[in-house]
């Protein structure tokens, strides 16, 4: 294995990928930066060997062009391992880069180990019901690593920037407008404490009480998928679970979630899990450290009073 190319548009995730790459110990590590001089500078100052592409004809929102940039850079530098971030941008890119490199690919990778001398990666499978350990058998490998699975790399004084020339065909995608998702840009994956609203919270008016509980515990609020997509009480950014955020908080206080695996995969790595549910047989209770069987309509005001 000749070396590793890491790429994410998010500089914080690049630093996590750098840690993963170093731990995999697969030769030299290069960070690709596309059309972003300041980010190249920043990552090089942090100690990374940056390969910088400056190609006015291509744009980060065009996945086809980005995939070409990643694949061509890896080819030019003879780097057989590509690490991408498993956020939405990185996941969309992963399959295309892999196909361009004739590489096997795994996404949402949470960790790795050495099995018989080969790298084996862990990721959730079957909707989160199982944890699969998988190895890639092709010479080139593309791996998208989940945010927060690795700590950011510590700064060193060994950074560098090298310009790379690539050849990308004209883009078939045009950007009309970008809107930041202002107003609700909570980072649930960074939260130390989470209060999670499930369908057991029956009235939207009770969310004010949930807010007070969260404030008292200095927690962020997340929710199960139906609470965001069906009831629309919270934006989808707050969904916890397989199709939302996978979190590792110190505390997860779960209010009225039955505990289907597609949800529990998002909190099961919490240090302490508390489940409050009116159904004593809820699956959520079985994977909780503390279980209170109670009607949330009555429990919430009391919880606010006693925590306040």
């Amino acid at each position: 294995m000749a070396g590793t190319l890491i790429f994410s548009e998010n500089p914080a995730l690049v630093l996590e990928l750098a840690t993963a790459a170093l731990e995999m110990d697969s030769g030299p590590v290069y960070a690709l930066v596309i059309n972003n001089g300041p980010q190249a500078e920043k990552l090089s100052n942090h100690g990374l060997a940056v390969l910088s592409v400056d190609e006015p004809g291509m744009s980060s929102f065009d996945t086809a062009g980005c995939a070409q940039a990643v694949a061509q850079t890896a080819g030019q530098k003879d780097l057989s391992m590509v690490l991408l971030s498993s956020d939405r941008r990185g996941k969309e890119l992963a399959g295309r880069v892999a196909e361009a490199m004739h590489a096997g690919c795994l996404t949402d990778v949470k960790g790795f180990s050495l099995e018989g001398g080969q790298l084996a990666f862990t990721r959730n499978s079957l909707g989160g019901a199982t944890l699969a350990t998988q190895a890639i058998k092709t010479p080139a490998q593309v791996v998208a690593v989940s945010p927060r699975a690795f700590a950011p790399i510590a700064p060193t004084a060994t950074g560098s920037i090298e310009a790379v020339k690539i050849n990308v065909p004209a883009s078939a995608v045009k950007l009309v407008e970008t809107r930041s998702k202002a107003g609700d840009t909570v980072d649930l994956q960074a939260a130390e404490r989470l209060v999670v609203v499930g369908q057991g919270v029956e009235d939207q008016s009770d969310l004010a009480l949930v807010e007070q509980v969260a404030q008292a515990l200095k927690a962020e609020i997340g929710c199960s998928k139906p609470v965001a997509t069906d009831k629309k009480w919270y934006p989808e950014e707050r969904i916890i679970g397989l199709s939302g955020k996978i979190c590792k908080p110190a505390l997860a206080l779960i209010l009225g979630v039955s505990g289907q695996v597609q949800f529990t995969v998002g909190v099961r790595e919490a240090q302490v899990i508390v489940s409050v549910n009116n159904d004593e047989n809820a699956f959520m209770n079985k994977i909780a450290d503390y279980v209170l069987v109670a009607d949330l309509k009555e429990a919430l005001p009391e919880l606010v009073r006693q925590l306040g």
Partner: protein
Amino acid sequence: MNIVVAMKEIPDIQQIRIRNRKPVTDDVPRTLGNIDKNALEAAVQIKEKTDSQVIVVGVGSSEVEDTFKEALAAGGDEARLVVWDGELESSQSAQLLAALITKIDSVGLILFGEGSGDNYSSQVGSRVAQILGLPQVGYVNRIEIEGSTARVTRSLEDCEQDLEVALPAVIMVSSDINTARIPSVTQILKAGKKPKEVLAANELGVAIPAAQVETISNLAPEMERRQISVKTISDLVKALADEGFGGGR
């Protein structure tokens, strides 16, 4: 134009049981991925505005024809399916689907869900786009067709991008793009009469690449928790405080 919707036949995740940490998928009925149904609904809504045909494509077990009946009932006009008994990974599915799609004329849009219901690896749409040399946009929650262009919105963690994509293109939709319709009994009955082509993989004329990924193990994680039952809110608040999670603003 023809709108192709690629859907995945998966075991019904809700019915998978775990025995000795191993998933038991025998006798679990086959179904279609939930987000795939959103992709189909998006196609049907575009069809209603643009005089298009919706062609559903998929790869699946010997029951694949049955599994995809629901897609025809929910608005697909025609199904092109490949039977493949056994495991298929993303790179192999992508080759089979790309070969199926290549045989369809005047394809304007190829729709996928953002991730399958079982593996959720989100690779196949991107791989098909690369194989066919088409532009792609993922995580799309709005599609409008204007002539030979699709105006779409891609929803990322921190922003939304309004994009214009030249057709034909591969679009992968998020579940929040729409609420997929549930077909009526009459529609399900009528679906049996809609055109279906079911091929064996070797009839497609494409070489299926060897598996690129090896699964070493696939086990339910051990989740040992204390399951301490607390009777009252004050017990719970005390337990939280003892764990170092005190309240107080």
